[in-house]
């Protein structure tokens, strides 16, 4: 789960990490009022849950009230990578003399939180990673130790020579780590972290992502979620125990297991078809899940054929079959269905399904080919 810059910085503020004076605005008038309050110059920044807003023109410096209004009018309503800008952040302009990058995320290899720091702040860190990887210092945080003073100091000395900045950084790094733990984050980033002309560290921008698996114990974070239309569908699916991602093809897929679902998409594409979605009905299925999945597939008007590929393990084929039979009894399904069932309780599943007279195929390749044949009819 992602949140906006201003929400991240509100969390930073709660931990006494210094951020710019700023306020979120929904209209140009609000932007003008905020500008008047803060004094000139200000920076007007699009708040959208995607990257690359700078390149898209979503960040503007305003040196006059008129410029602030103009910036607000241009940015509000702007489309950035398919996201419409509905609010902007107006932040007091700050004079600074250097920019740094700091970020915390999970490192798969060390199985720990990793702290990244770079003197090349203010640009996209992915670019730094490609062009000058040595400029990014990485520190694996031992989970038993946490961000103790010496670890924070080790990092801080990589960025700063001035001991006053080192001391500020130690405090800031410890707080960032605490935020990471307290909120079950998957990413906490300040880019840029600047040194103001007055010699203080300040978070000019902020970014946080969260571990979806931990949201159940983070109600305050979950309350910040602003899903778009596709995501709402995905969330509703997740509430039913399904993982759904809408794509732009016409073969609706219902598969159990993420890997098999991806492989099923790959096979469809390999034979020239186009999957309409990724849909993993997960393990531990109940008949209700299959009914929900069928409803989800049928709600996409692009879907011309449904391909069901189940390999039973924790999922029982008989549960899937029962769910499918019930779904077909309850709802009008006027498009063809191709089914492949194997694994746990497959025989029982096939027996149940046989009453509905649906086409049953024996391999994934066959299923894909049959689905493609049907969609092309």
């Amino acid at each position, binding site marked *: 789960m992602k949140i906006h810059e201003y929400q991240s910085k509100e969390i930073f503020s709660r931990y006494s990490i210094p951020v710019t004076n700023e306020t979120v605005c929904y209209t140009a008038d609000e932007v003008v009022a905020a500008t008047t309050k803060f004094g000139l110059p200000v920076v007007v920044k699009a708040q959208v849950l995607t990257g690359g807003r700078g390149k898209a023109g979503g960040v503007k410096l305003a040196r006059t009230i008129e410029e602030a209004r103009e910036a607000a009018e241009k940015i509000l309503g702007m489309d950035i990578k398919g996201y419409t800008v509905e609010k902007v952040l107006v932040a007091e302009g700050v004079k600074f003399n250097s920019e740094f990058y700091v970020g915390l995320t999970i490192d798969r290899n060390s199985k720990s939180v990793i702290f990244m720091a770079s003197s090349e702040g203010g640009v996209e860190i992915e670019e730094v990673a490609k062009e000058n990887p040595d400029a990014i210092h990485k520190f694996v945080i031992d989970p038993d130790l946490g961000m103790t003073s010496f670890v924070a100091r080790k990092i801080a000395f990589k960025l700063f020579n001035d001991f006053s900045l080192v001391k500020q950084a130690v405090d800031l790094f410890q707080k960032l780590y605490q935020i990471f733990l307290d909120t079950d984050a998957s990413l906490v980033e300040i880019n840029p972290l600047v040194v103001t002309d007055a010699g203080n560290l300040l978070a000019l921008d902020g970014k946080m992502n969260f571990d979806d698996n931990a949201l159940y114990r983070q109600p305050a974070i979950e309350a910040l979620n602003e899903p778009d239309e596709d995501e709402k569908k995905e969330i509703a699916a997740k509430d039913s125990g399904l993982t759904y991602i809408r794509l732009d093809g016409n073969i609706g897929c219902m598969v159990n297991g993420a*890997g098999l679902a991806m492989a099923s998409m790959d096979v469809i594409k390999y034979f020239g078809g186009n999957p309409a979605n990724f849909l993993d009905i997960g393990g531990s299925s109940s008949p209700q899940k299959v009914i929900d999945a069928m409803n989800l597939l049928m709600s996409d008007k692009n879907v011309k054929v449904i391909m069901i590929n189940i390999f039973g393990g924790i999922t029982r084929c008989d549960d899937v079959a029962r769910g499918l039979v019930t779904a077909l009894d309850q709802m009008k399904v006027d498009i063809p269905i191709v089914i492949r069932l194997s694994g746990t309780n497959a025989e029982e599943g096939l027996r149940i399904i046989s009453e509905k007279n649906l086409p049953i195929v024996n391999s994934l390749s066959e299923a894909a080919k049959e689905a493609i044949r049907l969609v092309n009819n």
Partner: protein
Amino acid sequence: MSILINKSTKLVVQGITGRDGSFHTGKMKAYGTNVVAGVSPGKGGQTVHDIPVFNTVEDAVKATGANTSVIFVPAPLAGDAILEAADAGVELVICISEGVPTLDMVKATSYLKKKGVKLIGANCPGLITPEESMIGILPGNIFKKGNVGLMSRSGTLTYLMVSLLTSAGLGQSTCVGIGGDPVAGLYYQELLQMFEDDPETEAIVLIGEIGGDAEERAAQYIKDHITKPVVAFIAGQTAPPGKRMGHAGAIISSGSGTAAEKIAAFESIGVPVARLPIELPELVKKRLAERK
């Protein structure tokens, strides 16, 4: 021989009284796995499938000598269950539970490393040494004893691959589902080395997927340490970037973690990669034949 589990494995099931725990305990027992105990706090003294239930893993280990644990508890309790198993002295823990918070896994993997206890998962289907022991949720009937070692980040995709191998006459030494979460227990490198050291394994199948760089690291490890033939498959060749494909790990971000990169990493060191699942058995046979 085989890796990790065999006939002498004595299994305790954490969460044995739950719906899934109970169901799959029955399946494991029916397969021939030596399930000696179950754990469910507050239900000590009961039995499930004639298996005694204990309040704590410690009690179960003391009473039955269990040396391996499999976990079926709800995700919010899974991290603690892993710690409990390691504390109680088992050698291997398999966590089936899906949706475990990442920071819980960070804590658990750190503790297990300190204790010298091996972990598989979380969010994995388990593992099997065919005709000896099956632990987890694998459909036992598709596996067959043989000489192919298999490891996979996926569950059901593994079943598909295994059924193709078995149909083609290629039995398996041990098959391990390592799980799809960002922080998990044993990974490709450790398992590659175990298969390399296992006299019964003659070829290794590695099933990967998009996201992260585990496959690239595995390729490097194979180049440096593995002499046995390896064949790979990568799921998600057509997945769009930025979308998480079910597994927490299965996300392509910023132009890295793509299937193309992973396939290139394997092919550059001479590990063939099947484009369709159905191609896999032939590639394995070819590599085995080349070797002889």
